[in-house]
Each structure stands twice: as C-alpha cells, then as structure tokens.
C-alpha cells in the first residue's frame, strides 16, 4: 500500500451559541472520528468553542467570485434524487475567513451553488462554499466539558501569564536608582 498522510478534513469552528461556524483550517485523518479528535487537539487549545465540524475536503464545492465570472454548468441529466440540505459558507471581507450564511435545498453541488448565489446574493462575497449537511461530522454538546473545558486550565499558553513587562520595569528602576545614587 503506498504511504499516506490520510485524507484531508476541513475543520469548521463555532465559537459561541448564536455565532455562525467559520472555516478554521484542516486536519489529516483516516476517518471522521479521528478527524474530530484531531480537530480538537489542533484547533481547540485556546478560545471558546461550542461545536467543531469536520468535512472531507472532497465534499466541498468551492468557487471564488473570480471563478464565478467564468460560469459553471449544472448537469442537465434528470435526477431522481430528492433535494438535500447544503450548507452555504461565504467570505465577504478580504482579511476574513469563510463563515456560514445559511443553507439551501438542492440535488447536487452545482445546483446548490446556483441556489446559494440566488438566496445569499451579496456583492461583497469573495468566496463561496457549499457542501451537503450529511458530509458534516460534528461534536456533541454533551461532550463539550471534556473536549473544550481542559484548555481553560492551561493559562501558560497565553502571553499574559509571563510578567516580563513588570520584571524589566523593576530591573530598569533599580538601575536608575543606582545611577541616581552614584551622581
């Protein structure tokens, strides 16, 4: 078997109730359960979280505003599938990341993108992602204490834990005092 770094799973992070999930990054994992555990270790060492999602990279249909100018086609094949829920993510600020704006019903990714463009039209949208709801594996709130709680007890991960400013100030004051006494 050829060596593998395992497939990529894109990670989304919902920091608080009421705030939408955002695109945080990715992890490599053999399967969704391992991807969720890896996502927690990689992305939840700091800050608050209520949900982490992982989605196989291959399930995400992505277009930038520039690409959309080229257009894309939707299959004209008759499909007997029922429409499914697709989540819609958008990036609207150049310095930002993609954030969920809502969801649409569609039978395939291209139709989902078309529906998203119509329903969540925004001249500021720079990047669009759609992916089916079934592709999302997520953490359960009942697990949050063990998933996200432990990070709160590790204050040494923050700059504020180290009193370097105070220490330098004391040393400089002591030096000034010595200089002053010398004069």
């Amino acid at each position: 078997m050829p060596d593998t770094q395992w497939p990529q799973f894109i990670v989304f992070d919902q920091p608080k109730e009421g705030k939408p999930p955002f695109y945080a990054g990715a992890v490599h994992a053999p399967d969704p359960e391992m991807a969720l555990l890896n996502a927690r270790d990689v992305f939840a060492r700091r800050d608050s979280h209520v949900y982490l999602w992982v989605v196989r990279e291959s399930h995400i249909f992505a277009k930038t505003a520039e690409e959309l100018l080229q257009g894309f086609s939707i299959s004209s094949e008759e499909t007997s599938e029922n429409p499914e829920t697709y989540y819609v993510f958008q990036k609207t600020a150049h310095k930002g990341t993609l954030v969920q704006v809502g969801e649409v019903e569609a039978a395939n990714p291209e139709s989902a993108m078309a529906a998203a463009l119509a329903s969540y039209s925004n001249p500021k949208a720079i990047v669009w992602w759609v992916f089916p709801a079934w592709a999302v594996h997520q953490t359960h709130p009942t697990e949050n204490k063990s998933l996200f709680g432990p990070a709160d007890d590790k204050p040494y991960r923050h700059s504020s834990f180290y009193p370097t400013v105070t220490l330098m100030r004391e040393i400089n004051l002591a030096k000034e005092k010595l200089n002053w006494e010398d004069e």
Partner: protein
Amino acid sequence: MSLDLQPLLACKLLTLADDELILGHRQSEWCGHAPILEEDIAFANLALDELGHAILWYQLHARLVGENPDTYPDQLVYFREPFEFRCAQIVALPNGDWAFSILRQYLFDVLENVLLAHYVQSAYRPLADIAAKIRPEEIYHLRHTSAWVKRLGLGTEESNRRMQNALDDLWPYTGQLFHPNPGEAGLVEAGWVADPHTLYTAWQAQVIPFLEEANLTLPTAKMRTLNRELPSQHLVGILSELQQVARLDPQAQW
C-alpha cells in the same frame, strides 16, 4: 480518626501523582517523533494533562503533610531518590513502538476513568474536587486511545501482531495497578478511596471485551511484582535525566 487517615491518604496520593508524572515523561518522549503530525500534537496534549494531574495530586499531598503546595511538588519530583518514588512499573517501561505506547496509555486511561468515577464521590472533599476537575480530561484520553486500539488491532496483520506483542508484554504489569497500598483498607472503609478489588473488576469488565473485539488474545501469564516499593531499573534511568538540570543548582529558581 480522620487524622490517622491523612498520612495514609498522603501515601496513596504519591502513588497517583508518581504514576502520572512518569507516564507523562514517557508520553513527552514522543514529541517530534510520532507516526504522523497530528499525533505529535495529540501526545503532547496527553502529556500536558497527565503532568497537570500529577501536580494536583502532589499539591494535595503537600497540604496533608503540612508543606507548601506551591514549592513542595518540585521538591518531591526533583529531590527524591528512586527508592522514594511510588509509581507502578508499567509507567516507567520504555516507549517501545507505537503499539506499545498506545496500548499502555489505553490500559491506564481505563483505570483512570474507573477510578475517577469513584473518586468524585469520595467522602474526603478535597480529593473529590480534584477528581471532578481531572475527570473530563480522562474521558477525552480514553476516547482517543480506544479509537487507536480498535484501529490498530483490526487494521493490518502487522498492526495486529504488534498490538498482540504489546499486550503480551504489558499484561503482567497491570496487576500492580490494583494492588492495595499498606493501610489502604482504612481509607476504603472511610469512603475516601475506592476498593481496589472493585476497581479491578470494573477495569477488567471494560478492557477484556474491548481487547477481544480488537482481535487481541488475552495473555495467560502471571502478574509480576505487586510491591510498589521496589523501583524499576527504568525508573532509575528516567529520574537521572529528569532531575539532572534541577540538581545542578538546588538553590536556583528556574
């Protein structure tokens, strides 16, 4: 009554703390050497948690013996001799291959989950409080290591063989984890700690079926030495490394 029990509990706490410290030491040896980048990060998390637990148990021990909980843990860790440590042999065993390290961690994680489930109800409140704090982290550890044990047991012929070798090597050391400390019966009677036999039964009830589902065969070998007062060869090596820098200058604040 409870004044007589405090020294016994202090001893018991050293076994818990020393186990966490030495296990954390072995976990931290994987940083930068794990099979895949995500596991460098995961094992560092395990090590950070275990070390944090060790510190909490050492601090409670300090309070029980009338020492300063801010400074005494470092004294215990860096200035005791090997014969004064109370960890189990299993935590000091060298890391071996990934299968060995993962399986050892899994066996210990089940123990911690079973133990903490009882300790959160301890009649000795400070112990129950620490157990409540630690428990969510151990729940996560067990989720992580169970996922690994299952996958390695059932993955390929090679991973199964390595897991079986690891189990054969580790199993005889597990009995010691449930061997009562001298005087522990008093602590059990007072409802301060759980009965080791109860813990052992609960641990086996979880571990045995899980390992069998992972296509591993339970070894029949006898349990090795049960007495924690005999330091292992491995512990001597670990401590000479662990204590090296601190002992360069015992007066220094690092």
